[in-house]
């Protein structure tokens, strides 16, 4: 039997970017949600459009400095971005192997920069205000026949889906382990996918029942 570390008390569930709001009084808490969402958009474009190690590092540093200035609690912020750090490390390592260290570093850091920036915005903005800002920001799309309220809700739900997916993955892994099947993708990936889809459907249905799309 494999030895496993003794299990401590359960950590509070990872709540994901949308659930991370921390009341505070930093300058970022006081800036309206509109400029923050716009800033996030500009940063996103910069990260994707600008290449090269120097700019990548500069953008990452600016983002980290912003996060520090928002005075977010270190522990829960780290916990929120930890899964992304691991993902970024894996993706970056793969790119180092495939295309060399410069590309690897750039890809990994870009990912961390984007997620950290999104986390800073959601952690200093109430979800309710964020939705309002998105509805306003997406307003022009009304002219091409799209509904800003529905789009904003979809973006909000995408952010919210991440912790749900992680929870599903954990549950499915535990169920598979209970049956001694944790290495069998049929017992892990398939049920996780099925549940993720079922969950998305039931959430969509519940929103429809509450008249959110009406």
């Amino acid at each position, binding site marked *: 039997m494999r030895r496993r570390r003794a299990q401590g008390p359960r950590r509070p569930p990872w*709540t994901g970017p949308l659930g991370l*709001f921390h009341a505070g009084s930093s300058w970022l808490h006081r800036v309206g949600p509109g400029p923050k969402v716009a800033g996030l958009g500009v940063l996103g474009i910069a990260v994707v459009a600008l290449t090269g190690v120097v700019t990548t590092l500069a953008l990452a540093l600016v983002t980290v400095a912003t996060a520090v200035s928002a005075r977010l609690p270190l522990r829960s912020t780290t916990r929120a971005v930890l899964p992304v750090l691991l993902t970024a490390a894996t993706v970056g390592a793969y790119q180092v192997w495939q295309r060399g260290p410069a590309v690897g570093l750039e890809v990994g850091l870009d990912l961390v920069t984007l997620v950290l920036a999104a986390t800073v915005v959601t952690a200093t903005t109430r979800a*309710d205000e964020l939705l309002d800002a998105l509805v306003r920001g997406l307003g022009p799309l009304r002219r091409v026949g799209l509904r800003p309220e529905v789009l904003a809700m979809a973006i909000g739900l995408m952010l919210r889906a991440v912790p749900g997916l992680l929870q599903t993955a954990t549950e499915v892994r535990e169920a598979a382990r209970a049956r001694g099947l944790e290495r069998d993708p049929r017992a892990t990936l398939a049920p996780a996918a099925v549940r993720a889809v079922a969950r998305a459907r039931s959430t969509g249905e519940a929103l*429809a029942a509450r008249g*959110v799309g*009406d």
Partner: protein
Amino acid sequence: MIELEQAGVTAYAPAQPEERGSGGHEQVVTLLHPTTCTLAERRIAVIGANGSGKSTLARLINGLALPSSGRVLVDGADTATDGAAVRRRVGFVFTDPDAQLVMPTPVEDVALSLRRLGLDRAARTARARQVLARFGLAERAELPVSALSGGQKQLLALAGVLATEPAVLVCDEPTTLLDLRWRRVVDDLLDGLPQQVLLVTHDLEAAARADRVLVVDQAQVVHDGDPEQAVALYRDLMASGATTG
């Protein structure tokens, strides 16, 4: 007032494996045979085996499911052509509150429901707090929803739906996942509501308190009326095992 006029629901189900070889296509399954009834009583219960069609019946009433034949009217509004108006009148509570709660905190989740009333944010938040206080959740208004117990989450789901004061509340097995204590809390709350309530339940005591009980079996309403007879019939059906399971 809820009116079902020959309302039936069918769906396409994948062909069974043994039929595929013989050129079998998707087959049409009946989720609810055409049903006609007028529901005006204040407390209506729906009981029946798992898979009998209870949820299908409940979902017809706020337009989550549309009838494949016939029609469903709520205070004269047709669920097929006037869905938004129907959903303003009919609130729907699901078995699993996790599917229903979408915002990070209770106050924001209730405020989400209030968006459709066209209130600004300050008004929404103030009203959401009032609603939460009425449901005994005032102290938990700002906690992460994930930190609430199952019972508290179901209360919150109810608060979110009742915040917009619908005329009718449809509840699809709202207490099935709850322990006895929370079941009592939710039951008492539902009993005290001024709204018309249609309750899908496996709790025969709750069903017996209703004014009118529908028993659904194999996609058909097999009894409609007196609660005592309904419960007796349901027990017979369960004992004989002649159900869809």
